[in-house]
């Protein structure tokens, strides 16, 4: 029976139990002529939790544990030496056994009955193929009985799980219902369950971080066991595909430097566009603009932040890139008479400019908040002493807001470094190491996307390197974020 149906049954059992408990709670009041400790709805929730929580926890554990136990059992049952004889590793052999199991399950019943433990594997393979399951040619005779055994195990386990889980639900509901009496403190117990649920929900944030770190750590450790960390962090050539062709060496060239340089260069161009525009816009809106201008300009700028990055990427690809290319062709034509473009359509400049546009609202709204939170008294003092508004901004407000603005810029920079879609479409994929902003460079995020789309093999360095890149990116942005948040916190305390 499928898992969703089991869950449905459990939910139904709980609901029935809860309804019964609700009625019982109301009856108690009439029978005994006194008010029970808790209201009927809490009796219902009490029974509901008894019916749902233990059985669903059990269901989850069973679903995780059963395949693992099955795998251990099958692996232990491998005949000695047979695996090595067939030139396989344990993992490969288990994979084949598993796919034979899938093949067996996809056969119609009458044909499956013809296969038993003594059937030679050669007879079974054509049948599997006929039903669309291809199995590696390295399969051996001894694998078939194991696959059959494994299938029996999982069928039995599933039935046992269904029965036990439903029994747990019914038993829980019954136990809860039996406990109902006037003095039962149902509300307190239900509230305890609610409280635990809330704690579990809030720890999901921690689990996500732990998941991010561990998932990347494990795979990166695997990568660094194949490629030395020195070569990765200080290599200046990026050519991962090279070794895939089988040019002898296991390792290609996985140099981080060109990617890091591209990331920082594009990020720097983006910041050069976004910071002046964003900062001046924020200053104007906080210090000069009247309410009407503000109420029009601010939302309009914020629309820029709501546009998905893929749209910016497309904009860079079809509008900005060709525009820069044609512009440079015109300029060089006017200067030298030779109409050849010196800005490539995919270039650091294109990606940087478009990313800069995307970042304007981040800079402006973050700095706007910070500038307006500078105390009124500082502003009034400066104006009262006869300074003009711009002098007040330059000499008083900006120095006072500086820590906050720096942290806003750091947060923006971390966004620029982690930005993916714009650079995927506009920066190109060639891992150049150049200082010419008119040429294409590539970034860490582009390479992560490139290495992780298409066919994946979690054993090849070509795939695993993406995790090493990912953790590098994560660490860089994490440092920027933590430092920025730290500054913000410190700064807030100063004026509050």
């Amino acid at each position, binding site marked *: 029976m499928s898992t969703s149906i089991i869950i449905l049954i459990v939910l139904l059992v709980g609901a029935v139990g809860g309804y019964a408990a609700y009625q019982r709670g109301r009856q108690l009041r009439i029978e005994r002529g006194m008010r029970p400790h808790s209201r009927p709805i809490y009796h219902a929730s009490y029974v509901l939790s008894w019916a749902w929580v233990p059985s669903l926890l059990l269901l989850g554990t069973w679903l995780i544990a059963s395949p693992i136990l099955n795998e251990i059992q099958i692996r232990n049952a491998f005949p000695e030496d047979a695996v090595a004889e067939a030139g396989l590793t344990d993992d490969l052999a288990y994979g084949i056994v598993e796919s034979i199991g899938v093949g067996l399950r996809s056969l119609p019943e009458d044909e499956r009955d013809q296969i038993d433990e003594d059937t030679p594997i050669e007879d079974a393979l054509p049948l599997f193929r006929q039903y669309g399951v291809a199995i590696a040619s390295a399969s051996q005779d001894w694998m078939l009985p194991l696959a059959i055994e494994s299938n029996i195990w999982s069928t039995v386990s599933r039935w046992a799980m269904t029965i036990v889980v439903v029994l747990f639900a019914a038993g829980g509901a019954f136990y809860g219902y039996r406990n109902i009496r006037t003095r039962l403190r149902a509300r307190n117990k239900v*509230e305890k369950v609610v409280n635990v649920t809330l704690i579990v929900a809030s720890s999901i944030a921690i689990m996500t971080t732990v998941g991010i770190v561990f998932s990347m750590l494990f795979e990166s450790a695997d990568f660094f066991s194949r490629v030395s960390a020195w070569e990765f962090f200080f290599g200046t050539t990026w050519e991962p595909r090279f070794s895939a062709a089988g040019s002898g060496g296991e390792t290609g060239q996985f140099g981080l430097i060109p990617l890091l340089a591209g990331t920082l260069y594009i990020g720097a161009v983006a910041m050069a566009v976004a910071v002046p525009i964003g900062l001046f816009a924020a200053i104007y*809106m906080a210090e000069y603009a009247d309410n009407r201008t503000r109420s029009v300009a601010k939302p309009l*700028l914020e629309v820029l932040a*709501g546009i998905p990055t893929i*749209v910016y990427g497309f904009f860079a690809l079809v509008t900005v890139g060709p525009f820069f290319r044609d512009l440079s062709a015109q300029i060089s034509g006017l200067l030298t008479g030779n109409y050849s473009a010196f800005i490539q359509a995919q270039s650091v400049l294109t990606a940087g400019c478009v990313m800069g546009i995307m970042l304007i609202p981040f800079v402006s709204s973050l700095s706007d908040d910070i500038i307006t939170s500078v105390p009124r008294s500082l502003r009034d003092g400066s104006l009262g002493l006869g300074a003009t508004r*711009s002098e007040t901004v330059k000499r008083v407000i900006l120095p006072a807001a500086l820590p906050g603005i720096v942290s806003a810029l750091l947060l923006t920079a971390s966004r620029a470094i982690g930005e*993916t879609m714009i650079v995927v479409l506009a920066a190109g994929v060639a891992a150049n190491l150049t200082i010419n902003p008119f040429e294409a460079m590539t970034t860490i995020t582009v390479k992560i996307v490139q290495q992780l789309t298409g066919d994946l093999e979690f054993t090849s360095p070509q795939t695993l390197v993406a995790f090493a890149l990912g953790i590098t990116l994560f660490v860089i942005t994490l440092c920027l974020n933590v430092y920025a948040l730290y500054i913000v916190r410190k700064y807030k305390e100063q004026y509050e």
Partner: protein
Amino acid sequence: MTDATANDISDRSEATRGRRDIGIKRRYAAERRFKAYGMIAIGLGIAFLFILLWSVVSKGYTAFWQTEIRVPITFSEEVIGTAEEGAANQSKLMMANYPQLARDGLIQLLEIDPENSEAVSAANGLVSQGVRMELRDMVLNDLQVIGTTEDVWLYASSDLDSALKGSYDLSVEESRRPISDLQLEFIERLEEMGALEQNFNWGLFTFGASSRAETAGVGVAIIGSAYMMLIVLALALPIGVAASIYLEEFAPKNRFTDLIEVNINNLAAVPSIVFGILGLAVFINWFGLPRSAALVGGLVLTLMTLPTIIIATRAALRAVPPSIRWAALGLGASKTQTVFQHVLPLAAPGILTGTIIGLAQALGETAPLLLIGMVAFVADYPETPLDAATALPVQIYMWANEAERAFQERTSGAIMILLGFLALMNLTAIFLRRRFERRW
């Protein structure tokens, strides 16, 4: 005496004014410059916004129209086989040479000599390769149509479509444009006959992925995105609200809750692609969920949206004045009752607004979905969240990589659809905030 004093003062002020004037002029000029920089900055920002929108709309609005050609199609039994044969043998019907029907129809319509292979192939280039499906579906729906002749509106090829919409420069010499002179002549003749029409392009909303621009649409991608949004809503909203309630109302101030808080603030700033790596490693590689499935996409987007929802929900809870809590507690409600029966309902509009904005963010997210294999050629509607699916932004990404003119137009069209959804969601959020927000 008084005169003297007055003279003194006016003398002095004259002198000082004279000295100050130099400074003030300079300072006021600096002031005006500074103010102008600010206005220029805001103007630039808004100009960029409009250039961006204009570039998308001007390229994309034509995608909502599709050229169709009215061709008299004879469903000849020689090509398809008789109705009886078809009823007995479906595969014969599926495999029949439908493009030939369209070709014959065009030859008849344009009165071309069937022996003139150049003209025939030029005419054939006018209709889409999608006619195979179009005509096949007609026949499969109604076998009675076999043997009759009917006027059918066929999709025009993307070249003809683009030429009519003016995307090609038709004044250049013949070899440098995808439409030949002969084809131009045909087009003129078709227009005269009234057999050429531009209709609203419903296909853009209903079709799936296709290698032909005229039969490519975002229908499948919209369904995929809808599945993901439902999953995000079903998971992120309850978990996010529960987490915020705990942090805001119950949590004692200790290391653990401090850790959670730092964590949530950090997660909000982690690059989205990192969440994609997480999804790939954990959900696909460890849990063994299928690649390209809407379920995995939904889970990844849930994790991404959680911090946004938590931050918005906490702000909404904080905005509920403490007097409400005191009143409830004073009347004997328990802490849990206070929160769930009094604080939460009052915070609901704020939570809803935050959730919608979080969903809008998730809807536009592309990078993590690329990593979990949603860059897939999916032509069929996914029936369950476990089937291969794609998402609206990912579809845009895939089309953006196609070189054909017609695809560029569709990409812009798809972006307009995406931006339309986002605008709708954000306007809903603004409306809710205006309508239900209470200030205490």
